[in-house]
C-alpha cells in the first residue's frame, strides 16, 4: 500500500511538472517545473530500489543540468514571458497533438498487450541479486547495496564504456568552451551584420 501511495505521489509530481514545462510562458518557470519532474523521477527510482540512481538523479539533473539551464536563461536575458497564443506555423498544434497522441497510443498498446508477461529471461550475467555479488567481493551481506553492485559491474564488464564516457565528457567540455567563447577577429563583423539583419 505504501508503495502505491509513493507511486501515486511521484506520478502526480512527474506529470504535473511535465505539463508545467510545456505550458509555462516563462522559460524560468519551465525550468522550475522541470526540477519538480526530476524529483518525481527520483522518487520513482527509490520506489524501484535504485537508490544510487535516485541520488545521482537529484545531484546531476536537478543540481547541475537545471542550474545550467537557469544560468543560460539569465545570461541571455530571455526570461520574459512569451505569448503562447500566437501559432507560428498554421496547423502546427493540431498536428503536434495528433503525433503525440499517436505516440502515446503506440506505447500504451505495447505495454497493455504485453501485460504482466515481459519477454526475456531473468538475468544470468548481471543479476541485481546482491548476495551473489557480495560473495564475489567478499563483503558482508549487510553492506550489499545497489551502489556496490553497480560499481562492481561498472568497473569490470562496462569499464570500456565507462572510459569512453570520460572521453565524451572531455570532448563536451572542450566543445562548449569553444562554442560559447566570445568570437574575436573577423567573426565579430559577421555577427554584427546578422544582428542588424535580425532587427530588420
Amino acid at each position, binding site marked *: *500500500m505504501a508503495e*502505491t501511495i509513493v*507511486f501515486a505521489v511521484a506520478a502526480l509530481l512527474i*506529470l504535473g511538472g511535465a*505539463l508545467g*514545462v*510545456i505550458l*509555462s510562458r516563462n*522559460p524560468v518557470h*519551465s*525550468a522550475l517545473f*522541470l526540477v519538480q*519532474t526530476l524529483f518525481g523521477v527520483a522518487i*520513482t527510482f527509490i*520506489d*524501484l530500489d*535504485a537508490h*544510487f*540512481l535516485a541520488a*545521482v538523479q537529484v545531484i*546531476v*539533473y536537478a543540481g547541475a*543540468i537545471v542550474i*545550467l*539551464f537557469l544560468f*543560460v536563461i539569465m545570461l*541571455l536575458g*530571455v526570461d520574459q514571458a512569451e505569448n503562447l497564443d500566437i501559432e*507560428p506555423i498554421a496547423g*502546427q498544434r493540431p*498536428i503536434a497533438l495528433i*503525433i*503525440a*497522441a499517436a*505516440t*502515446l497510443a503506440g506505447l*500504451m498498446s505495447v505495454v497493455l498487450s504485453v501485460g504482466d508477461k*515481459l519477454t526475456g529471461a531473468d*538475468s544470468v*550475467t*548481471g543479476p*541485481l541479486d546482491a548476495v551473489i555479488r557480495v560473495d564475489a567481493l567478499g563483503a558482508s551481506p549487510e553492506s550489499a547495496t*545497489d551502489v556496490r*553492485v*553497480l560499481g562492481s*559491474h*561498472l568497473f569490470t564488464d562496462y569499464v570500456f564504456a565507462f572510459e569512453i*564516457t570520460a572521453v*565524451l565528457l572531455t*570532448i563536451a*567540455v572542450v*566543445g*562548449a568552451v569553444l*562554442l560559447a567563447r*566570445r568570437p574575436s577577429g573577423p567573426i565579430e563583423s*559577421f*555577427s554584427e551584420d*546578422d*544582428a542588424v539583419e*535580425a532587427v530588420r
Partner: protein
Amino acid sequence: MTFAVDAPTTDWYLMLSAVLFSLGALGLLVRRNPLVMFMCVELMLNAVNITFVAIGRELKDVGGQLAVFFVLVVAAAEVVVGLAIIVTIIRRRPGANADDISVLKG
C-alpha cells in the same frame, strides 16, 4: 519477482513512462523556444530512464540501472554542448526561436 497485491507492478511504471514520453514529445513539437524544447528532450530522456529501471527490476538485471547511468552521462554532455550552441545562436540573433534558425545558416 513477486509483488504484494496492491503494490504497483512494472506495467504501471511503463505506463507512467509512456505518458511522460508523449508529453515531452508534445512539448518538443509545440514549443518554439529552443531552451524549452531542450527541457522537453530531458523529459523524454527521463521517461526512458524510468523504463530502464522498471524493466531492470522486473528482470532482476543490473543492466537497466547501468544503462540509466550512461544515459545520465550522455545527457549531461548533450546539455552542455546544446546550451553552448543555443548561447551562440541567441548571441548572434537575439530572440531567435526554432523557426528562425531552420536553415542552419548565419
